[in-house]
């Protein structure tokens, strides 16, 4: 039996249980400024408000006060050469309100990256310089080992 094949729901029946949900949720940086207790998610297109609430409460054990969803239209773009129009997929966004005392700030993940990269490049340059100096020093006596020096 496929795990994605459910019997039809009729009124009065028990609610259908999903044992292996395959919904996904992405936490994304909000496009507009939001109150500190509102988190923006990009979710599977099939998810409803109730699904989003259950997902966060049951799987992530997060307290959820309110969920609002909307479907954001994908951007259209006209091709520069041939003029045909391409469109990106629509996405469903969920705005989840947490309790008043909670606050979430989207983290800056690449703040240290530039610094780190500069440091790595610097050390690489230094070692390159060192090797060059070594080569220059041993130019007149090829084949001599590195330790054979004054």
């Amino acid at each position: 039996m496929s795990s994605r094949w459910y019997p039809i729901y009729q009124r009065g029946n028990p609610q259908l249980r999903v044992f292996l949900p395959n919904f996904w949720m992405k936490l994304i940086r909000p496009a507009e400024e939001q109150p500190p207790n509102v988190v923006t998610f990009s979710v599977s297109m099939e998810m409803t408000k109730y699904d989003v609430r259950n997902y966060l409460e049951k799987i992530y054990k997060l307290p959820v006060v309110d969920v609002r969803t909307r479907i954001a239209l994908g951007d259209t773009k006209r091709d520069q050469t041939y003029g045909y129009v391409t469109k990106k997929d629509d996405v469903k966004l969920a705005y989840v309100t947490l309790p008043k005392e909670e606050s979430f700030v989207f983290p800056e993940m690449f703040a240290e990256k530039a610094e780190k990269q500069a440091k790595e490049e610097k050390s690489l340059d230094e070692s390159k310089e060192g090797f060059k100096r070594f080569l220059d020093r041993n130019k007149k006596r090829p084949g001599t080992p590195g330790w054979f020096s004054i």
Partner: protein
Amino acid sequence: MSSTLIKCFNLAKTVRAATVKGFLTSPQQQWQAWSAAALQTPHAQLHTSPARRDLMEFFDDKKHWSENEVKVGRAWRTDELRIKSNKELHQLWFVLLKERNMLMTMEHECNDKMEIFPNPERVDKVKISMENLETVVRERNKAYHLLETGETGERPQKAVKNAFGLQVNYKMCEHVLPPFMNLKWIKSRNIGFGGRAVNRFLLKYREQLYNAKRKAKNRSRNEVMMILRRNPNFDLDVLRRKFPDVNVDKLRNEDKARGHYVPKVDV
């Protein structure tokens, strides 16, 4: 170099925390280490990495944020999943689900900030693991249904003809109304296809298929004859193997298979 060492050390620590001999052979990914640790009920008294219960679960470990490379193990295989209990599989599914959400979140943010997402194959590994897990669950479902009801319990399918008269696989589903009461469905079947136009279409469609087949046959036949013409001593067994639908022995005596030279006659 030093960061790799630290990573190895961390990995070793996690594996030691899990203290599973069998697990050493299975994937050494961190999330899998967590999952395995979570699955070890007899070893529950052992301390494992604490479960984070907040929105930071949607993000990768802080130390991986500015890394260019995040090393992980391989995906779960079906053989490894088959020896797990249903409960363990159910728990692992949610671990994988969370991991996938985390990776998708990180990928989205990287794309937004024009950064390179380190090791994107992690997403594929999670996907493969989830597919394998679902396969195993499906196998068990099938076995259970066969035992209890004598049927597989899979979604029933049947071959039906579509509006163009071509055969398609129809996946059946449950309906609220039985067919004789479902007037909308009955009306939808009376729109009148299956007549002259469909027959003409099918005739031409089948002609196309037949022509493609015929041309392919002729092509291989000609190819065999040309090979025999240019190389009179060619190994016939090789030809027979390579062109199984061509009668090589018959073609040998064809006029086209004879070269432009005087055949050597043994005196």
